[in-house]
């Protein structure tokens, strides 16, 4: 059982700063997902926790012990790599036993632990095989097994599911979640896949250009994104952003074409005329005529079975995506904005504006 604290962790490669001061507290038994686009520094951060990279400044504290200067071997962690990184010349048993042998554990204890882990993961019959003879999903399980047998203080996952096909990925995702719950091991999971992040994490860290844009539970990130980056990154299809300005005692937004949209939850801080960005998820655009309705010229229809994604343009020429229940066909789609689901962001900083 362990906690992890990152204190103002910074990392530069030569002149390029990739991490700009990360602070993070991971509680005992918690699974925190670090999610972000490629190059946002999420893998670097994980490697710093693992001890494979040295931070330029800042501290990594595991269970109250500062491990910043320690070798990976001395940190009591286990890591699952994207390409599994199994030892190709060892059997499945050898792969899982390697770390235990190094620690000088007794043979029967090693065998017992490997057997137990293999049981949990359903790879018992594979213990004599070499990694080459395994499928992707089985390799993934062996990599997990290698981490489990060590009974480490901390699990680190570096995009472990991205090499699997879609179906297996969904299955392994659920399995990892179950396993992590069952073992109760504090975990850090890096991914670029927002669905993985949402479904796996107790909390998410959304990284943007080396900074944590928001740290919160998945549903809070979805319903109250801290800025336009988080809002656009989480949710599929991505949120629509519409430029507007504050009006009517800051209680409404005025669109460029003059339409007024009242805020359902009260006026925003700022002076009238302040440029803002309105965010609206595609599923919160309701089809329907009437006052305040925007007629979309349909450009592309993507039927997904139970729902349909419609890409269209407003009369002002702005691209807007709507997600409708059921099927849809036609050239024109009038939609209404549901004010209750409106997100308001500062147009300059991109930060979320909450009612004053």
């Amino acid at each position, binding site marked *: 059982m362990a906690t992890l604290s990152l204190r103002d962790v910074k990392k530069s490669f030569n002149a390029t700063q990739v991490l700009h001061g990360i602070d993070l507290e991971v509680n005992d038994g918690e699974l925190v997902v670090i999610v972000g686009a490629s190059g946002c520094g999420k893998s670097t951060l994980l490697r710093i926790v693992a001890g494979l990279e040295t931070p330029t400044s800042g501290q990594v504290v595991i269970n109250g012990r500062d491990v910043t200067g320690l070798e990976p071997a001395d940190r009591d962690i286990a890591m699952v790599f994207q390409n599994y990184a199994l030892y190709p010349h060892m059997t499945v048993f050898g792969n899982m036993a*390697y770390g235990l042998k190094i620690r000088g554990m007794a043979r029967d204890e090693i065998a017992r632990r490997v057997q137990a882990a293999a049981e949990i993961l359903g790879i018992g019959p594979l213990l004599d095989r070499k990694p080459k003879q395994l499928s992707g999903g089985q390799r993934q399980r062996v990599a997990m097994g290698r981490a489990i047998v060590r009974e480490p203080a901390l699990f680190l996952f570096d995009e472990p599911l991205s090499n699997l096909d879609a179906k297996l990925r969904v299955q392994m995702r659920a399995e990892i979640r179950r396993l992590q719950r069952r073992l109760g091991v504090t975990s850090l999971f890096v991914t670029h896949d927002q669905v993985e992040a949402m479904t796996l994490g107790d909390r998410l860290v959304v990284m943007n250009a080396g900074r944590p844009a928001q740290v919160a539970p998945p549903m809070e990130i979805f319903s109250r994104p801290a800025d336009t980056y988080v809002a656009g990154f989480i949710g599929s299809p991505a949120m629509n952003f519409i430029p507007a300005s504050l009006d009517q005692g800051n209680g409404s937004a005025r669109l460029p074409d003059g339409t007024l949209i009242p805020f359902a939850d009260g006026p925003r801080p700022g002076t009238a005329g302040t440029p803002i960005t309105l965010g609206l998820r595609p599923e919160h655009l309701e089809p329907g005529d009437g006052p305040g309705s925007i007629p979309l010229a349909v450009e592309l229809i993507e039927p997904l079975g139970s729902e349909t994604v419609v890409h269209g343009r407003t009369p002002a020429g702005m691209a807007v995506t709507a997600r409708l229940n059921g099927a849809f066909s036609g050239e024109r789609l009038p939609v209404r904005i549901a004010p209750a689901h409106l997100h308001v962001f500062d147009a300059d900083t991109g930060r979320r504006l909450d009612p004053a």
Partner: protein
Amino acid sequence: MQRKVIFRGRILPIALLLPQLAITFVFFFWPAGRAIYQSLLREDAFGLSQEFVGLENFQDVLSDPNWVNAALNSVVFSGCVAGLALGIALFLAVQADKSLRGVTVYRSLLIWPYAVAPAVSAVLWLFLFQPQVGLIGRWLNAAGVAWDYRLNGTHAMILIVIAAAWKQVAYNFIFFLAGLQSIPASVLEAAAIDGARPARRFWSIIFPLLSPTTFFLLIVNLTYAFFETFGIIHALTSGGPGQATETLIYKVYVDGVQNLNLGLSSAQSVILMVLVIALTAFQFRAVEKKVHY
């Protein structure tokens, strides 16, 4: 994946194969056939008369204590050269794999010796180890070691081993470095996280994963030391002192070219040929089976 190319008629495929077949025939089958034929004959030193003697030459060779001595020399020499060349090359490759700065310069410097002609490299080693004028030779003598490879057979052997290994290190280095670079970094990182220190990582992960490369190089090095070191031995010790550095290949030269005993020399060549074929066949078999994982 097998691609079948179908030619109309027979002339074109034969014409395409002909140059290669001609080269193989002229430079291998013909001389090899001559050697086998010659090994069954006894000829006087002036080449005036020949006599068919069957396998008598082989009998003479195998029962000749000088030949047995040369065979032992060859084994010692080849073993030392292969061991030294592989060991040093592996060490250097591991170092080159670590540091990234200036690695290209370091790498090309290490590859140079391979381009040096055997005679030139021999002269270079002479300048170092000659007891009166050689840098290291003088230093050794000053330090109280009675170093003289012209009198001491062991010294002579050490000298040709060093000179021959030095040339082969470059070749081995290239292969080891390529082998090291093909080991995924994440596997080594996983081992580090599993608690393995660098030495343990080397012996339990890197070395086994390099084993196909090592095995290939071992065969190549043995072949090199056995058959391609004539130049170095000739320039440095000429097989001496006594016959302390006379290897099998050198003895072929001495018996055939110096003593003009063509039958005996041919018989030795045939024995060597069989050895090469056996070694190569063994390598092919082993590579097919794959030695590692």
